[in-house]
């Protein structure tokens, strides 16, 4: 584990998983459940950008902006059109929400396949400067952008949640929907904001990660699981916890196949999931509440 290039790769992977986990975290804090459609949101961001660039010869930046807009709309529709009505009818049971989210995940995959086609498209890099060489490591512009944007979005989220009015409202609503509603807080608006922000973060993550391995309409499910695992491993005690979980998974994703062969990361993921779900389902970082 001395090859620095591999470490860079792991950090980049970790930043991607961390951003997906941040999207999970935002919805979990605001709405109290895990939105499995995060991976398909990221896929939508990456695939839509590539498709616009390849098919309509659009510039990368306008294409990325359009893709982000589409994803944010999808996230808002998920909350307004599916999750909210289903939760209202089922009265807070977990299974109906889970099935509804699974249906959304499946529908977005099929929609993307129908509109953009099923083959894998190459990702479009937003940054076009030359690769930077630091010592013996070559940093690709897309990697640099991924890491910078991930750190930025975590920092902004931390500031937003801790010190703005809306951020504090988000935590209040997430802690207890009912108490927040009794206090007259705008529960529905805050939940919608959480979904929209999560869609934004996920779309950015997808766009920035797509250059690494390309993207197709079925990438979303694996990304959903990786992001979920990252947020479970990290825990929901701090805003930065998802990034830590993501980094850990990034190491697994890069180093296991390197040492144990092509499919080892799949077994590794399952092993980590079983380990954490059995012994530490609350994650590594837990918010301690004084008695």
């Amino acid at each position, binding site marked *: 584990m001395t090859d620095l290039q591999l470490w860079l790769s792991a950090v980049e992977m970790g930043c991607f998983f961390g951003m997906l986990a941040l999207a999970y975290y935002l919805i979990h804090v605001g709405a109290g*459940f*895990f939105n*499995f459609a995060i991976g398909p949101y990221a896929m939508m961001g990456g695939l839509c950008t590539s498709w616009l660039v390849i098919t309509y010869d659009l510039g990368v930046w306008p294409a990325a902006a359009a893709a982000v807009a589409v994803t944010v709309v999808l996230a808002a529709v998920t909350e307004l*059109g*599916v999750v909210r*009505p*289903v939760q209202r*009818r089922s009265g807070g049971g*977990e*299974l109906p929400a*889970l*099935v*509804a989210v*699974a*249906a*959304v*995940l*499946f*529908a977005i*995959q*099929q*929609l993307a*396949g*129908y509109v953009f086609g099923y083959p894998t498209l190459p990702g479009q890099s937003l940054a076009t400067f030359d690769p930077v060489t630091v010592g013996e490591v070559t940093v690709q512009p897309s990697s640099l952008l991924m890491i910078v944007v991930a750190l930025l979005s975590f920092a902004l989220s931390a500031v937003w949640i801790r010190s703005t009015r809306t951020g504090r409202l988000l935590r209040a609503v997430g802690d207890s929907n009912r108490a927040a509603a009794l206090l007259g807080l705008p529960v529905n608006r805050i939940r919608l904001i959480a979904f929209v922000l999560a869609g934004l973060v996920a779309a950015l993550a997808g766009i920035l990660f797509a250059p690494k391995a390309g993207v197709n309409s079925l990438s979303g*499910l*694996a990304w959903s*699981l990786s992001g*979920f*695992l990252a947020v*479970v491993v990290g825990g929901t005690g701090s805003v930065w916890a998802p990034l830590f979980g993501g980094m850990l998974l990034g190491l697994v994703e890069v180093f296991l196949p390197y040492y144990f*062969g092509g*499919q080892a990361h*799949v*077994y590794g*993921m*399952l092993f980590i*999931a*079983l380990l954490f*779900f*059995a012994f530490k*389902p609350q994650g590594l970082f837990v918010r301690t509440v004084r008695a």
Partner: protein
Amino acid sequence: MTTQTIQPAAATAGWDIRRVPGIGGLALGGIAAVLILLWVGSDGYKQTLVTSAATYALIALGMYVPYLMAGSLSMAYSAYAGIGGYAVGLVSSKTGLPLAVAWLVGPIVAALLAVLLGLVTRRLSGFFLAAVTLLFGMAFTAFLIDAEALSGGSGGLGNLRPLNLFGWTPSHYQVVLGSAVIVCVIAFLLDRLRLSPWGVIVRTMRDAPRAVEAAGVRVPVLNLVALALGAAIAAVGGGLFTYSAGSITPDTFTLNIVFLAIFMPLIGGAGTPWGAVAGAVIAVELTLNFPAIQTSGTLLLALGVLAIMLVAPRGVVGYADKLRTRTWALLRKEPDRG
């Protein structure tokens, strides 16, 4: 178990077939199956559609017990169906045993694996269980590709021997017929199971696990039995599909099928196992046999599921049942008015 409920009738008015629980569903399902088989005739493509629908139905029926009766969404069913399929492939290519043994071994192995996975994940529910079981399905596919000596790698297993039951080799049409019969029988038995005391306990466990535990029933054991039963049924379906397709690869049973199997009971109606069968028929019709919008059949299905979930939570069978009771009420009222 359910004979208790029909005993009074048997004592007074003799045995009445109309009072056997679940017989109405069986009659309707049987009629539908006969109509479908008449429509199919000797058309090879339509026969493939029927075996696909039967496989989907068996996987959805397998998920019925843990998912709709016990209320825990385990998504490892692609692996269980795969085990059933590979049992057929392995018995055919690696042993000299009669092929029918595969339908004995496959479901047992799948049930054992389901118990093992159930033991490891016994404290999980909801999102956590769904995530672990999805990862398990992915890891199983990876294992099938890796273990080339056993599973033939990504090429899979092919060239299956024909089935031979005591010297009788069923024709392709008879296999199609047999798969329809198996689906009807299992749906009927599951319907009976749902109405039996055991089924009532399992369904109560979904809504009030603590009350069931307090009443002296071991909830974890009940969950494991439900999972094992479901896995065995899915493995039967996997074996059936592999036999009629003639080969199996790691891509035969993907996670796509698991998602479809979650949606089938919602489309058909979650109230009875026949809803899952109806959903399977509709799913196959939309995804495989819809020439006008072939590529978007699955999309249509996904959007349809969302619409059904929001507008008609009881599904097609639920609606049909409501329509039937309304019509009966209307027919009975009519003479009074006149």
